[in-house]
């Protein structure tokens, strides 16, 4: 219901009644503040609110470090990595475990060396580097012959000082969930074993 009030007809906001309005506002603010202070003092007698913290979920674990689905022989990797996906696939050689990591901070060579030493420690001492970037590690773990293949791909991170630098795909023998796996292993974001098929949904805009 827009009117046609000309600005020069608009009510005056001169200094005459402003201090009064201001005093009223100040009084109101003071009263509200006082009420808040009193309520705070009494507040604990009403009980306590119980926020869920859902917008800062606790970080979950790491499937390798926590031993949810251990690497052969319980190998631990010495370079900075995060697990991206994990799961079993059926190929020509039967079912194999397909584990994908992203590494950060270090060069490709350090990752290759890190993989070699990590798996050598658990008995996979026979390392072969091929020209296409594949690394094959073979040996025996607990008397069983085991072969692990790692394919390394650089990530073309355009930042001048890149943090995330590459991706490792590990082709491993199928692993069972460890019987003594800690509770963090119940979380799919720890194991990164997601149900196949996309189930992502876009949340509403921030």
């Amino acid at each position, binding site marked *: 219901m827009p009117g046609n009030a000309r600005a020069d007809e608009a009510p005056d906001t001169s200094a005459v009644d402003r201090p009064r309005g201001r005093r009223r506002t100040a009084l109101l603010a003071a009263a509200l503040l006082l009420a*808040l202070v009193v309520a705070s003092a009494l*507040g604990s007698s009403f009980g306590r*609110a119980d*926020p*869920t913290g859902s917008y800062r979920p606790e970080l979950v674990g790491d499937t390798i470090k926590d031993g949810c689905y251990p690497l052969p022989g319980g190998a631990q990797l010495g370079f*900075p990595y995060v697990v991206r996906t994990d799961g079993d696939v059926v190929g020509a050689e039967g079912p194999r475990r397909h584990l994908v990591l992203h590494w*950060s*901070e270090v060069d490709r060579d350090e990752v290759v060396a890190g993989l070699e030493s990590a798996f050598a420690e658990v008995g996979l001492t026979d390392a072969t580097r091929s020209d296409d970037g594949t690394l094959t590690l073979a040996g025996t773990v607990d008397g069983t012959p085991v072969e692990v293949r790692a394919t390394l791909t650089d990530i073309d991170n355009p930042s001048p000082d890149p943090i*995330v630098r590459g991706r490792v795909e590990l082709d491993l023998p199928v692993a069972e969930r460890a019987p003594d796996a800690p509770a963090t292993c119940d979380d799919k974001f720890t194991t990164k074993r997601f149900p196949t098929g996309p189930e992502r949904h876009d949340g509403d805009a921030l």
Partner: protein
Amino acid sequence: MSTTAPERPRPTPTGGGTGRWTARWAGLGRPDRILLGLVGAHVLVKLSAFLLVGTSPLHGDEAAYVNGGMALSNLLRDLGSLTTPDTAELSQNVVASGWFMPGISLLLTPLYLLVPDADVGLMRAYVGVITSVVLLVAALRVRRVLGPGFAGALLVMPGLVPMWAAFSMATWGDLFAGLLIVLLLVRLVELSRLLRAGTAPSLGDGVRLGLLCIAVVYFRSSASLLVAGLGVLTLVAALALLRGRERVRAVLSSALAGVAFLAVLAPWSYVASEALDGPVLTTTSVPTVLANTFGKRQEVCFGECDPGSTIWFSPLRYSRETGAVSGHTEAEVADQMSAYARRDVTPSSYSADVLHNLGAYVWDPPRFYRWLDAPAGPLRAVSAVVTWTMVWVAFLVGIALLFTVVRRPRDAQVVSVLLTVSLGALLTQPFVHVAGPRYWTTAAPVLGLAAALLWQERVRRRTAAAAAVPAAVPADEHAGMPEERHHLDEVWGRWLTGLQVVLAAATALVAVGLVALALPTYLG
């Protein structure tokens, strides 16, 4: 529309309560009676909205704001009973991941202080009442400064929009920020009158202005641009219109505004920076927002993000996990993720995305009925249609505002510039962020005021045409102003006209540029 009550016989007060109210009503002028009627209508719209969404469960980010309010109420409780506050709880719920400023959480704090386990219905009623009170305060301020026409327009748009009423019971800060923007605009109109008369705002005025600006940002951090734009405009106007000691006082007042702004921002920035272990000024979400808006969503995590979570939480998890193993902050990782996802962005793809966002901004104003689980039925259907109609008309008003150049009176020129800059600043949202049917609630009050301005301008032009004295400067243009300021005021008027022309031209240029740049993406 005159603001003085027309003469009418007043019944003698009978002393009884009803009699006094009857007398008051009889003493009101027609404009005020209409305003009161609109307030009544607003209350009815609010009640109907409560029927639709009053007990709807929290949707999405509402949970974050409610968590913040609860944790802040616990903080007050602890302080009140001299117990050590639970800093972990505060960090996890008030700062959380630093995505949102805590304006709404602060607003909710008193509720959860008094009723720690308030159910969602009580919470929605509480927010609904507060937003109505602030709307009424804003309307009263507008009536006082700009006249009842503008106040009426504000009570209609957004006051009578059913979806706005429903959304005012939700806890996103957008709508509340829009109301605070009205208070800010009214304050700036008052200041412009002072400046025109050659008087600097007092130091207290500066502090109050700074506090109002930071309040807007606390409710909607992306309104920072609006606040900055209006702030720069006010400072330039003060420097141009004042001389000597008044100018110095204006600079001091502006400095105090800045200090007040930063003093209120600082605690948040400090707490958020501490909690997230890296510098945070307002919010942390910009990199992921840009990646999701303009980059490839399937590459935000240097590849696909974890499935089974949202486009906000999955990248957050990746940045936190990577930050933890690499010794960087999650913000540093998020920056690089964003740059990676956006490495193929071209001016054309960017423009096409902006146009898409603009579409999402305007397309479905009543969408939140769906998200807030409003029960299907005639009430929701009617509310949705009314919302659609009113908001789309308001969008048309907004377009008209962007291209309207008001040449007189000076006060209307000032209002036009302020509204245009405000709307322009709010419309930068689709240029930086995935847009949705939530952002119009920030712009709605500006659009309401714009409707009044355009109506007033239309009436003025018609009157001028009828009187056939279009070119003459009305005698009252300099009313109450010392003679030596007349020339300066004329120059000021020409600048205001010029600024409106530049803003209109810039709008046209951006619009044409966007379409031209986006064409190859659409055709390709």
